[in-house]
């Protein structure tokens, strides 16, 4: 009985040790295998690409501040003027002084449009304003105030586009306006679109942002809208008339195409 027990003991110990060793080896294998398998073998980066700057277009007044288009009263024989600024930098008053204004190089074309109803016999003229560079024309006080002198320059409408946009006020739209009971003849006049796409040098209207050594420079294009009454009108006919006037700027944003 003693010998059998001893043999059994030996066997149990042997078995036990073998079991332990096998288990440890298995554990070792699993660890090394797991590490080997999930390790990323190789990695590499691509070259850098820039992200294009979005088109930032703002309609401002002549000072570079927010625009409020108001004219007040227009007397006969008087010409009222409104200065409009078109820029790629927002009005100073609206700035959050975000760092993004240290911007990216950017260049894009834009269109400038004056749209107005014609209930009142008013003539609207749009001019481009060019900064007078020659300092000899500027008075000393104005120079010290940083006053800018602007010169009127003639710009021409995009005749075909303006005509097309104006004509889009067509039969269907007229019918929509008068509704079922009315007649198209009841309509007295329609909205005019005057579209400008080139400056006085016949170059497309364009805004450019340039970044140079950490500082960004923007552009501000000036426009002048003049209003005056037509000649020989009978004012009493227009006492209750009102007109709507819109100044619209659009960035020209073509979809990228493969050259």
């Amino acid at each position, binding site marked *: 009985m003693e010998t059998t027990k001893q043999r059994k003991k030996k066997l149990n110990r042997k078995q036990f040790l073998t079991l332990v060793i096998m288990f440890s080896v298995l554990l070792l294998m699993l660890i090394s295998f797991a590490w080997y398998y999930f390790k990323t073998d190789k990695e590499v980066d691509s070259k850098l690409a*820039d992200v294009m700057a979005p088109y930032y277009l703002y309609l401002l007044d002549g000072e570079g501040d927010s625009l409020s288009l108001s004219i007040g009263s227009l007397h006969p024989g008087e010409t009222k003027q409104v200065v409009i600024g078109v820029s790629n930098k927002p009005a100073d008053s609206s700035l959050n002084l975000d760092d993004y204004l240290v911007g990216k190089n950017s260049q894009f074309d834009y269109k400038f449009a004056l749209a107005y109803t014609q209930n009142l016999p008013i003539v609207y003229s749009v001019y481009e304003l060019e900064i007078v560079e020659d300092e000899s024309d500027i008075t000393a006080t104005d120079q010290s105030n940083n006053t800018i002198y602007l010169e009127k320059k003639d710009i021409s409408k995009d005749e075909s586009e303006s005509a097309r946009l104006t004509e889009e006020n067509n039969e269907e739209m007229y019918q929509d306006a008068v509704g079922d009971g009315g007649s198209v003849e009841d309509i007295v006049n329609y909205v005019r679109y005057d579209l400008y796409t080139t400056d006085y040098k016949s170059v497309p209207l364009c805004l450019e942002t340039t970044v140079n050594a950490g500082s960004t420079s923007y552009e501000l294009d000036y426009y002048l809208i003049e209003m005056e009454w037509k000649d020989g009108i009978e004012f009493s006919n227009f006492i209750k008339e009102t007109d709507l006037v819109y100044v619209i700027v659009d960035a020209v944003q073509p979809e990228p195409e493969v050259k």
Partner: protein
Amino acid sequence: MRKNFFQSVKEIFRDWDLKVMSYVMLVVTATCVITATVAWFTCSAYASVRNMEIKTGDTEVIKLAVKEGNEDVEVLRENGEDPRVSISMPVFTGVTQVDGDIPVFAPGTYGSFTIYVTPMKTNVTACKVLPSFFGSKEDQSGLTYMTDNLSDEEKEVIEQLVKGHILLFTNYNETTGYSGLLTDTTPLTVELGWDKETNKGIEEAITIYWYWPYEYEDLPAEAQKLDEAQLLDPERQAEDKYSDSRLYDFADTRIGTNVKNVKIHFEVSAVYGNN
């Protein structure tokens, strides 16, 4: 029978402290040996160890190159070079260069990247490729920003939008368009071949296509299923007055305003199998 069983159990637990101790010591020793070996191999300061690896070529499992037939990227890095995958894209109108000759990503642009993977062991039958704008490690964001003033939440919003706007695909076909949208969690598996005659791995060119859809309507089918946080600008969406198309455009503006550069990070790992 029961008595025997009980006795055997007793036998096992006799001198159990000695047995446990020997077992524990065995495991501890094994762990030390493994850790030391791992540390030895991954220690980057030890140049001579690296050189040994290259000469024998025994531990190289997979080769990654940025040009056809070129050397492995790690070999080039040891020589002080900085291998990068080139961006292949056509020339576009309406896209203004931001900075010299660096390629420009903009809504409406597209292109591709190609990497070259070669198996170095016969049992490497495939590889997993994971391209992303964000590396696996914390400090490896592929985006650089225009300003340092962005909060972590703002950066998170922008990163989500980049994932949804600059899309990565495995396939492009003239007729069927883009397919095989890749996300951070879906690596691409490519089979690798072995040339039995020369006893060398066959270099495989793997191309990943990228595309930044111009408008919401241009999103390829697979991308339309992406989460809204990746497609639409969340700040504007909260105002609840814009269409999805406008919100996609606002997201484009947010990316263009805040992101200076992007780069893609590629992770390549070997997949083992039977040849």
